[in-house]
């Protein structure tokens, strides 16, 4: 089954709508919202084992809304979203996690955070050695290992 087929059109609309409420676009930080088409496409393409719980979360969202969530006005959406987060359990937590894990690997977002656009391997990172003289007070204080009989 293709990723797009894992969610209905209505569910995809609702996912996009709530994703924008979780992480909206920001001119100040020059980042897209989580409803950005590329980020949404990443979510749909990588739902994998989360698909069932995300679909369940979106069904729960629609039930709370009484109609497609995306069709609610802003005030009603806020109220439903709050209820969704407090009552949605593991399914809602999974949906939020899917939104965030795709958002925080988007190139534009990582660039805005000052992070490199790469996997950790093979370059790795450089860690400052630090000032080991900080240990001097510990050495001076010493202490005794508790002895066993």
């Amino acid at each position, binding site marked *: 089954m293709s990723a797009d087929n894992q969610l209905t059109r209505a569910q995809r609309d609702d996912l996009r709508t709530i994703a924008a409420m979780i*992480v909206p676009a920001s001119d100040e930080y020059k980042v897209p919202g989580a409803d950005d088409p590329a980020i949404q496409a990443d979510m749909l393409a*990588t739902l994998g084992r989360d698909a069932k719980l995300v679909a369940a979360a979106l069904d729960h969202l629609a039930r709370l809304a009484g109609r497609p969530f995306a069709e609610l006005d802003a005030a009603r959406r806020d109220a439903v979203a709050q209820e969704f987060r407090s009552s949605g359990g593991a399914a809602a937590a999974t949906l939020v996690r899917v939104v965030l*894990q795709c958002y925080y690997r988007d190139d534009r977002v990582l660039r805005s955070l000052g992070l490199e656009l790469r996997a*950790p391997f093979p370059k*790795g990172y450089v*860690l400052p050695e*630090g000032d080991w003289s900080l240990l001097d007070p*510990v050495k001076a204080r010493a202490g005794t290992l*508790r002895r066993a009989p």
Partner: protein
Amino acid sequence: MKDPVDVLIIGAGASGAAVAWSLAETKMHILCLEQGGWMNPAEYPSTGRDWEAKFYAEWSSSPNVRGRPEDYPINDDNSPIKVVNYNAVGGSTVMYTAHWPRLHPSDFKVRTLDGVAEDWPIDYDALTPFFEENDRMMGTSGLSGDPLSPLTHPPMPPQPMGLSGAIIGKAMNKLGWHWWPSDTTVATMDYEGRARCINLGHCTPACAQGAKSSTDITYWPHAVRAGVELRTHCRVREITTDENGMASGVVYYDKDGVEQFQPAHVVIIACNGVGTPRLLLNSASNRFPNGLANSSGLVGKNLMFHPYAQIYGYVKEPTDSNRAPPTCLWSKEWYDTDLSRGFVRGYGVQFVRGAGPVFEAVVSEQKGILPWGADHHRIFRKLNGHRLGFSAICEDLPEEHNRVTLDPVLKDGHGIPAPRIDYTISENSRKMMEHALARGREILETAGASDICVNSPIPWGGWHLLGTARMGTDPERSVVNEWGRSHDVKNLFIVDGSIFVTSGGVNPTSTIQALALYIADQMKQRLSNLFD
């Protein structure tokens, strides 16, 4: 029928690898059956841009979440601490923090010193040469001379202090409390064919560089070269016995799922504190109706986890976040008993450098400190790359009601009953955790941290699986004797964490492996009368 082997080891993790390597010099025919396979570092999370997302799926520390064919399910619904492990050549050393303290000498004498639990039948000195041997084989880094830890001689220097370590060190100095760079099994220089650490980040779920030692890249290559046969994707269902009550071999499912019988003269179990009692209980027979090696009734009982009390916060200056191995320093300030604290025994502390952006976002949203909406971006930038953590590893005392049994319903992919965990955190542990959280808060506040959050216990923190087939001299109060041999079945040995009598307040892998080497040494010394 297959030819019998001299020694059959079940499990290729921390202890199975060590015992296989040590026994290899006897030139006996040694076979190890492992339910997982060899790992491929090219597939480790840090090789991909989606490395953090993998922690929530195929690289979760929970076998129930991972659900790989190599894993077995665990019913831990009745436990506030969930079991985490890994099943492969290397076992859970593939997926561990590489934090490398040892049990202290006092940990072996808790009854004598503090009037609780029971003393071990061996002492620290009996293990000293094996700690040293194991440190050389695994390749440790650290700084010798910690005044509050047993003396170690790491062959490599400690990990850099980094940004996080310096902030913690300064705070601890202000408070006048002990801290020290952790001994780790992360190679800080090229060592025995392994490349040095290049700070790939959160190395708990496997190291693509090979700098973090797991037994698939330390003990196993040596053991295989020395002639040990390692058969992968073979899951043992039960240990069989003969008419004399001796272990005769094992029934297992091979990589094609076909049932096989492998006869053996000696069987060694190295399946950890959950897998080992599961196997013993599933090996019940007419002669051993309550499970194999279980005349004491203690197989599966006295499960100890180490409840983790974790507290973390956010400082203004940048921390190492995900750009380094997760742990860097430890403290033994509260390791030993001080009854004025309101509890007996104590805890070790490991300080945590930080987190990656996805983990930070997901966890902070769950904690309610990262909002939805317009302010999300401002708050996230305040949190991300600024986290410092404190985790107390609280000594868990043995209690028989904390136990592993066979689940009557849940089964693994081969139809073998899954383990069921029943566990509660004791009042003593709760007081210890509260004490630790208060100290952690003082440290974080001294470091200037805000937005302080607590995980107590860490729910998916059941890394350390101990005590469920403990050692002792009294067959009525222990499962194996003081050198790892079953009291009931004289050619059956256990070498994993299930033989721990008490848990101490430190990560146990170093001690588990030292015990495995010690037992192997005892076996080699007694080859002519091993079954007497």
